[in-house]
């Protein structure tokens, strides 16, 4: 479904990604692991079209996404829930959600999608007229995910969804992600929390210094000493 090959990207003259290879198939929940600075966020931003690439290819289904902006990525069905949640702080929950479905592709079904998303996250339904800035980190994370769902994604990419959340909210966020995946949504998940993301995912990639250094089935990655090395820098 998502095919990334030989991808080189970065900020200005600084190259972060060095020939990244990554694949996500229909229905999978794939974890992308790596320490802070390994290049996970850069990779996700580049896939989403927020950052330009200097070499390599990104394709989705049979759509070529290399060098296309976010407008085309959303059109194709890839939606990124960014690190730090990035909700619109001075807008209500409802307005945030409406914006999630503002793209011309999902727009015609927006009212129905909104009802479905609010059913999925009853807490957001209760808070629909509350300003996003006044909510807790966990609630904002939920809003960010719900806002992403409003665009009717075929592939939902999440960057550090558990970052800065209370343990209970982390559990709840992951329960929601597992449920969405079980319903057929393909998910690519970047996490520093190895245990959690490997438990939730079917396959995983480990990133180090802008390269994919290890890939495999999640249960095997969990026991692979190289995974630990990538995190701790030594065995």
């Amino acid at each position, binding site marked *: 479904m998502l095919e990334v090959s030989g991808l080189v990207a970065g900020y200005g003259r600084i190259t972060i990604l060095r020939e990244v290879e990554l694949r996500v198939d229909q229905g999978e929940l794939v974890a992308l692991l790596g320490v802070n600075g390994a290049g996970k966020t850069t990779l996700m931003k580049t896939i989403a079209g927020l950052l330009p690439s200097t070499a390599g290819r990104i394709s989705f289904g049979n759509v070529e996404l290399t060098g296309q902006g976010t407008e085309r990525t959303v059109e194709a069905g890839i939606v990124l829930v960014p690190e730090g949640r990035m909700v*619109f702080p001075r807008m209500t929950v409802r*307005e945030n959600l409406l*914006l999630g479905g*503002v*793209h011309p592709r999902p727009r015609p079904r927006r009212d129905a999608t909104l009802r479905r998303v609010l059913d999925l996250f009853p807490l957001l339904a209760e808070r629909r007229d509350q300003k996003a800035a006044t909510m807790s980190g966990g609630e904002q994370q939920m809003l960010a995910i719900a806002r992403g769902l409003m665009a009717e994604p075929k592939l939902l990419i999440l960057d550090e969804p558990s970052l800065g959340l209370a343990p209970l909210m982390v559990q709840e966020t992951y329960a929601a992600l597992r449920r969405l995946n079980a319903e057929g949504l393909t998910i690519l998940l970047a996490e520093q929390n190895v245990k959690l993301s490997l438990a939730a995912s079917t396959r995983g990639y480990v990133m180090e210094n802008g390269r994919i250094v290890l890939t495999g089935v999640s249960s095997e990655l969990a026991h692979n000493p190289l995974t630990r090395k990538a995190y701790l820098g030594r065995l």
Partner: protein
Amino acid sequence: MPKEILLQAAVQGLQMGAIYALIALSMTLVFSVGGLLNFAHGDFMALAMYGAMVDYEAFKIDAYAIAPIMFALFFLLGVLLFRRVVQPVLAAGVLAGAQLTLGLVFVQENLILVLFGGDYVNVPTVLSNRNLVVPPLVMPWPLLVGSAFAAVLAIALYVVLMRTDFGRQIRAIAQNRDAAALMGIRIGRIQAIAFGVGIGLLGFTGPVIVAQFTLMPTMGLDLTLIALIVMVTGGLGNFLGSMIGGLIIGVAESLGSLFYGGTVGAMIPYAILVFVLLFRPHGLLGEH
């Protein structure tokens, strides 16, 4: 001081305030999508007023009739200007953008000077020198109609900003540009339209208030200055704040010149600005 005079000044202040509110609101619209303070904002309005003058002298069509056409022309001018000039310069930073708009001030003011000379000009309309008398108030028709248009446009724009997808996209870009891009919002397109609407509103407002003003090439910067005071008083980037700020500054200016005469009275808006910022550094409705 007789109550009637006070009331008269207050009403006149509110009417000027509505006009200030619209100028400030359209400037806030331009500001909100690109973080650009358009120092040439008032000059676009001056240009629209001179446009009404040209129209009157050449075709004898009344300024009120030309307003919708001026809206369309200025909308196109705004979109074109944004796409061809502002957007590329903004990519180099907001400071470069501010310098650009300062440059536009000189371009427009000198263009007016070259084309129309430096004399004071009045543009007659069907409503010139007519008053509506509602005892004890005497209201000049040009101001009444001009401010009514401004008030309606300001409220309409506010409703569009708060209630429509277009308005939500503008606010989204202002609040978090990257997040807006991730929704698939076409940032450049929305920015260009917002810029066009902001300039277009000036194109409309210029002719409908032209009878209230004496035209001179440097009048634009005065309007920009007032709009800046209004924006900062109300809270920079806040749409509602711009409207409330406009009314406050309008009334303050009017009552100020009533109590203290023209020179000292003209300082009252600045005094209000300082006073507001002392207690609310982000303006009346400013957040962050």
